[in-house]
């Protein structure tokens, strides 16, 4: 019985080491058990990485995420519109827009206006905000069935509530007859500096909130009764050929 002899000899030789191996095995198994298979999962991830699914499905997931975000955004806009309605404020932008060509411009006279080739037949009404590439340029001051007249932000008649995007300081953007309107702050110490972006104010009842208007070019801290700033409009008023009217 040579085989039985060999087995007996081997068992007798490894007998003193058996408890150590057993202990290590038990500890490893216990570690895996109490780490909820973390080691196993990580090892599996490492080994199976070459066989993971391609990017097609991850793109599909990203697209689903975008759809979800859009749905959430429209819900938030609805909610925001409802709350602004309760507060009696102007509705946020995002509703319909009408593109209209500029058929007459009078940027250098006593009255600084544009005439658009679209009017009440296209849904344009008095008071609506007018955007050019870059930001707000004015508001509709009168309409006919096929034309609309826009009072530019540079017209001395124009007054629009704005705020500085960086620190939310409120002010009144006033046309003074030049290419650059004047921002008159409602606080003694607005803490603004050249380069700050000016947006329409959420407190404004005339224009939708947070439309880009321009950039502060110079600040006059010693103006009375409050500091003033010269604003360079973001939209090129003198060169614009097509504008968009935000319908309410």
């Amino acid at each position, binding site marked *: 019985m040579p085989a039985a002899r060999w087995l007996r000899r081997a068992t007798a030789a490894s007998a003193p080491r058996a408890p150590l191996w057993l202990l290590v095995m038990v500890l490893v198994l216990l570690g895996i058990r109490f780490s909820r298979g973390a080691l196993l999962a990580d090892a599996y991830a490492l080994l199976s990485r070459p066989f993971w699914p391609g990017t097609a499905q991850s793109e599909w997931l990203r697209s689903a995420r975008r759809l979800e975000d859009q749905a959430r955004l429209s819900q938030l806009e609805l909610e925001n519109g409802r709350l602004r309605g309760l507060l009696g404020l102007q509705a946020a932008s995002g509703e319909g827009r009408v593109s209209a060509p500029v058929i*007459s*411009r*009078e*940027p*250098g*006279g*006593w*009255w600084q*206006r544009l*005439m658009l080739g679209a009017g009440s037949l296209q849904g344009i009404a008095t008071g609506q905000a007018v955007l050019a590439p870059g930001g707000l340029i004015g508001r509709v*001051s*009168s309409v006919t069935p096929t034309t609309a*007249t826009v*009072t530019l932000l540079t017209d*001395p*008649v*124009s*007054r629009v509530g704005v705020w500085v995007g960086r620190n939310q300081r*409120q002010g*009144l953007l*006033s046309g*003074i*007859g*030049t290419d650059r309107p004047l921002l*008159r*702050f*409602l*606080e*003694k*110490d607005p803490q603004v500096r050249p380069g700050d972006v000016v947006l329409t104010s959420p407190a404004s009842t005339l224009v939708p909130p947070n439309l880009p208007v321009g950039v502060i070019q110079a600040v006059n801290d010693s103006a009375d*009764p*409050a500091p003033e700033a010269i604003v360079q409009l973001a939209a090129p008023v*003198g060169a614009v050929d097509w504008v968009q009217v935000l319908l309410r």
Partner: protein
Amino acid sequence: MAALSRHPWCVATALLVPLLTLAAPAWLRLGGVPPAWAVLWLLPWALCEGPRSGALAGAALGLLLDSLHPASASLLPGLVLLGWWWGRLARRATPVRGTLVLGLLALVGTLTLELSLVLQWLLRGWWRSAAVMVSPESPSGGAAVLDPGVHPGPLALSGWHGIDLLGAGLHLLLAQTLLTALLAPMLCSLQLLLWRQLGAGSRG
């Protein structure tokens, strides 16, 4: 004379004034300011037709041009005054012919028209600021909303203010007056020639 009024197409040329005002060709501006087309049309008309027709034409032009602008200030009083004054000049023994005289008349006329607007804005601004000061709780004025804040009432007063008139307003006034006076000898003398021939023809 009142002979031109019998030619409907002569009267219809007045429609060119609002059309040119709207078109405002960019190559015909000085510092971004267009000429006073109303002055360039009214001057030869009033010199041909006399004070009554001149004043009427001034009123018609004023109504046409005011319809293009908001009711903040009106061109009508200035144009009526100019039409009447230039018409009175036509009654003199020697008719106005020289191009230099036409240029000077256009210069004084444009200056008068612009100053009539400036006067209206100054009066309007003074009246509205007085109203805000008297009634600080009025909707246009309102109470101070922020603390430490600034009374928003005077800031919200729209229209040309005195300081703006001294800056952009002065530039506008000078540019428009100069450009109109430069164009008048050329355009007004042509119109005068044409309309005097038409007037003589219709009398003959």
